[in-house]
């Protein structure tokens, strides 16, 4: 279980401090898949980085499995069981896919064992295991390898920052299956996904809406999802009405 208590994060911007995350308190319970969603620039990715230890909060505390990990490094948090999938995966010259999965697993897995994780994300394992994690891989391939490294960690908490970003439609379908499988196999662990995608929201146990750095809504999928869809529809309508007026069109015209 992960708990954030009164987390704030500020960055200096033009002489003044800009608050990216404002007094956020939330809990990611065990055996739950939680999706954090909300508008761009709302602080979602920053929140994920605060959990992984890539950023340190300016205020508040982070607890993982009951331990205060606020002052722990990225490495120490990883070793305690927090895994993190980057929105934009990193490339490495000379490091092979197999090397990366071995590092993630923390053991010298056989190529066959490593392939299981690659197959799970829909990659034909034999074709990839010896390839370098370099610019020769496409964005979608890298993204799937990134997710495979998180699977290999078998972590207490797996955090995915916009796993759908940069992935094609076919891969996306596959990705949903990966998360559904993870959801089914969840035991004493939890999953946190930052996402905008309806289909990912649809498999969540809980949804948190983050806007302007603060938690706007939080609850079960059944509670939050219909509201979100309603907001999205009315938001589109408002936008549509505004555009209709601006163009001098009659209400009801397609915009």
């Amino acid at each position, binding site marked *: 279980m992960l708990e954030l208590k009164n987390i704030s994060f500020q960055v200096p911007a033009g002489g003044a401090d800009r608050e990216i995350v404002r007094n956020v308190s939330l809990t990611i319970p065990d055996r739950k898949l939680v999706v954090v969603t909300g508008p761009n620039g709302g602080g979602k990715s920053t929140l994920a980085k605060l959990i992984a230890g890539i950023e340190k909060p300016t205020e508040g505390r982070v607890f993982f499995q009951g331990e205060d990990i606020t002052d722990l490094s990225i490495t120490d948090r990883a070793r305690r069981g927090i895994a993190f999938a980057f929105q934009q995966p990193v490339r490495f010259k000379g490091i092979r896919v197999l090397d990366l999965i071995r*590092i993630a697993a923390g053991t010298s897995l056989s190529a066959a064992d490593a392939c299981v994780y690659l197959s799970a994300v829909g990659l034909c394992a034999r074709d990839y295991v010896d390839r370098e994690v370099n610019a020769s891989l496409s964005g979608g391939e890298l993204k799937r390898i990134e997710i495979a490294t998180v699977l290999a960690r078998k972590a207490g908490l797996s955090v995915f920052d916009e796993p759908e970003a940069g992935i094609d439609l076919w891969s996306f379908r596959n990705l949903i299956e990966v998360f559904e499988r993870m959801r089914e196999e969840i035991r004493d662990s939890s999953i946190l996904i930052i996402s905008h995608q309806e289909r990912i929201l649809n498999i969540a146990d809980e949804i948190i809406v983050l806007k302007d750095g603060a938690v706007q809504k939080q609850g079960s999928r059944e509670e939050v999802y219909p509201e979100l869809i309603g907001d999205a529809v009315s938001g589109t309508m408002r936008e549509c009405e505004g555009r209709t007026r601006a163009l001098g069109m009659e209400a009801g015209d397609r915009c």
Partner: protein
Amino acid sequence: MLKMDEIQKRLLREIADLHEVPEGAYNIRSNSQSIGRRSSANIEIVSKTDVSGMDIHIKPGTKRESVHIPVVLTQSGLKEVVYNDFHIGEDCDVVIVAGCGIDNCGNQDSQHDGIHRFWVGKNSKVKYVEKHYGSGEGKGKRILNPGTEVYMDEGSSMEMEMVQIKGVDDTERTTVAELAAGARLVVRERLMTHEDQRAISTYSVNLNGAGATADIVSRSVARDRSFQKFDAKIAGNAPCQGHTECDSIIMDQGRILAVPGLEANHVDAALVHEAAIGKIAGEQLIKLMTLGLTEAEAEEQIINGFLQ
């Protein structure tokens, strides 16, 4: 195994991966003496009479054979210049493993300058591996200045792997190649320097015949206060293709100077150079740390991969 002490054996393992007497032809040189030599039916090794060194004659049509000519120096203060000439006949397919390991535990400089010349016959294929390694706690420097000259006949190909990862204080490497029509040269250089070490690598490649190709890639890491210079020039004198690349990581107060040079003397010469120098990307370190490595372990992984 030949009569060698533990240090000599260790050096041989580092530079030539040799645990026992190699198969095929070989010459093992230790402290300026040949301590073991074997010619084979197709490969003859003969000592030079005018200077220190050997002539290695490889008969035309020799396939899937190897020659090992490692050198070890364990006597502090020893300085030598050695000339080894490889005469490779037509239609051969051979592996040549050279390399030099110096252990200097004294206070005087030890130096080995190995000048290797290759005449590669028509349609022959050569793989050449040269590793350098230094060890020892003495104040004396470990100096290696290899000179390599390659003369490639029509349709021949040569793949050179040059590795210097540890312990050599000062090195000036000069490589010159002349390629006839259809010849192909591939060079993969891997270099890491530490402390106050200095390494200079200069290439001059002439693509003289139609369809000649050269691909020279250097990957290097400069740590501590070390300095490296990579100076690679390819001249295209015919319809040909040349590519040179210097990809480097600098750490601490390390310095690297890359001087890629292209000279197109023919309108159909296609020449490309690339050079990139920079420190390890922060996001690479962070990614590996999220997988549970410490910053130092992550750095090691990145460098090991880079120099693979």
